[in-house]
């Protein structure tokens, strides 16, 4: 059975921090489809549109009929482990540092046999559930889990390499004033985070939920204002070297589009917080985090942005806010590329209208802070890159994938509806 991981000891100051190394990230363009599916936690294979055959590994033409009409589709992730071995020696630096390492072949109920990393609690020949996860190089890999789970399953060292589990990690949530900070802090405490730093801008004016936030176990409220470079640098100087998961929940929003506002004042605030705030945080915390991607049990592991799903398609009633989130979305891709060498993943959590004062006149469904927090934790535990919270966000991304131009027209029809 998996041995539960112990709280990591305090760091030995005489030992060099282990430099992050990565498993091979070379893939064909077709195989990048696995990463795209893993980014959302989906188990997918290519299926042939001509003859129906499922494909493995990913390829450009059908292995049965040579058709090039291959389309990714969700596949039932169940099968049996028909072969397994434990790698004890590897020439690859990443695996060399992590042996022994279990791998095997799983015969899927859906047909193909696939290569997979194998959980320590799976017996040879046993039934397994497969998951598609991003490895440290950001590529999709299959991992075989015990069919019915096992005690401390998430603590398997091979699985932990593929996730961003908050257990025993130190968290920074950037904005205490955001109404969702209490739910986020509680969720991290429940998930076993060791410390939860919560940044507090403008400590010179009160906010209603401060006492509730301070009462959450392991929470420390620290000064942080993402619009103030000095403040961001000061906090990074203090805790940048022990921030394992950063959750950027800082957000400035006001309703309104271009012409009904008549000025650029709120727009500037929105870009200062939602775009330049992300950039300031990344400049201050990014280097230390990406340098600590292999720093043991509590290595730096993930950067989380909470974005509006209207980053994909402008909601005219919140037009400028949408634009700032579109800019943040673009910037997050830049950050993802820059963090990749450290093996630190960037996870964007997209929401539709949230349950707060700025969406108060909007009809439900709205995303409650608890639902958002739950999705953040679940996304980290699954090592995701893209999480869509709530019906509005899920529906919007579906429509965006079907056709952004049609969606743009649909959004126009919503102008003024909020």
């Amino acid at each position: 059975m998996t041995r539960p991981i112990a709280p990591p000891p305090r760091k030995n100051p005489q030992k060099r921090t282990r430099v992050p190394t990565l498993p091979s990230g070379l893939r064909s363009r077709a195989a990048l489809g696995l990463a795209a599916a893993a980014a959302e936690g989906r188990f997918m294979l290519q299926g042939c549109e001509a003859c129906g055959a499922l494909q493995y590994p990913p390829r450009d033409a059908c292995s049965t009929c040579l058709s090039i009409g291959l389309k990714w589709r969700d596949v039932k992730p169940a099968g049996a482990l028909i072969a397994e071995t434990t790698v004890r020696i590897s020439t690859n630096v990443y695996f060399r540092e992590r042996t022994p390492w279990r791998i095997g072949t799983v015969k899927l109920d859906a047909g193909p046999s696939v290569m997979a990393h194998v959980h320590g609690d799976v017996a040879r020949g046993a039934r397994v559930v497969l998951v598609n996860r991003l490895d440290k190089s950001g590529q999709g890999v299959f991992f075989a889990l015990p069919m019915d789970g096992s005690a401390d399953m998430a603590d398997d060292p091979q699985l932990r390499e593929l996730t961003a589990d908050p257990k025993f990690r130190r968290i920074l949530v950037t904005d205490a004033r955001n109404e969702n900070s209490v739910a986020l802090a509680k969720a991290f405490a429940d998930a076993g985070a060791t410390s939860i730093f919560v940044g507090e801008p403008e400590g010179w004016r009160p906010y209603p939920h401060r006492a509730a936030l301070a009462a959450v176990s392991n929470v420390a409220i620290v000064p942080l204002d993402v619009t103030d470079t000095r403040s961001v640098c000061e906090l990074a100087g203090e805790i940048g070297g022990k921030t394992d998961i950063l959750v950027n929940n800082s957000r400035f929003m006001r309703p309104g589009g271009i012409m009904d506002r008549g000025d650029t004042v709120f727009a500037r605030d929105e870009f200062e917080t939602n775009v330049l705030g992300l950039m300031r945080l990344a400049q201050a915390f990014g280097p230390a985090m990406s340098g600590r991607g292999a720093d043991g049990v509590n290595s730096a592991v993930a950067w989380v942005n909470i974005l509006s799903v209207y980053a994909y398609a402008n909601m005219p009633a919140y037009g400028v806010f949408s634009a700032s989130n579109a800019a943040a979305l673009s910037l997050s891709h830049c950050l993802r590329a820059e963090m990749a060498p450290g093996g630190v993943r960037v996870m964007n959590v997209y929401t539709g209208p949230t349950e707060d004062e700025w969406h108060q006149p909007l009809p439900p469904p709205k995303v409650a802070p608890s639902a958002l927090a739950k999705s953040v934790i679940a996304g980290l535990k699954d090592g995701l890159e893209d999480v869509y919270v709530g019906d509005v966000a899920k529906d919007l991304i579906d429509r965006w994938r079907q056709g952004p131009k049609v969606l743009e027209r649909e959004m126009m029809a919503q102008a003024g509806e909020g």
Partner: protein
Amino acid sequence: MDAIDNRSADLLAQMAGAIASGGIEVVDLTHTLDQDFPVIILPPEFGQCARFRMEEISAYDHRGPAWKWHNISLCEHTGTHFDAPSHWISGRDIPHGNVDEIPVDRFVGPVCVIDCSAGAGEDEDFELTPQIIRDWEKTNGPIPRDCWVLMRTDWSKRRGAAYLNMRDDGPHSPGPTPDAIRLLVEERGIRGFGTETVGTDAGQGMHYTPPYPAHFILHGAGRYGLQCLNNLDRLPPTGAVIVATPLKIKKGTGSPLRVIALVPGKDA
């Protein structure tokens, strides 16, 4: 150039000498422009006063090898600042009502300081009333025309959340009543009114009639405001002169500024 009036030249020379020797003390009435210094908070659907921000352009590095400098951003009404008549709706048609248009001689003038620190220490909503002003005059003589009047509360010694003192029903800080401001403006003819708090009005000043009486009455009459002042406890009730020169912002309604006071020395 016309011949210099020797008498005024002598006065200036004496003053310079007295400043150099310490006979006249120069007191800084300004708070440091600091990212964490509170600004006035309005209901969030209104536009807001920008906080002071500073971004490094270079610091003797690859961005500029031999020099260090910053871009700064702030509101006209951030930190220790000057309010021009055009700041308020009542003063919008006042001639020379913007900071760039005010004659520069208005920036140097005598100051009366009314000490309300004891009262403000006991009551955070302490009001400056006509009675307090008249009592002050009994001791110090009538407030001269065209003089600055500063309300000392020692509020500048407060830090953090205690400064705005914001609660669910808004901020609580001392300030003048409408009648007190009318007395100062309409009967005494003051040049301007200054406070240690974030505005010239009391924290609860929106509940007076008219709301925000100091802003409404002062600026409606073409007078000026100074707020977020510091070190007022170092000024005598009368006899000091302040220099308060706002930036020359085109059509500006106010300006952060360095306010200094020239304070006569004490008898040895």
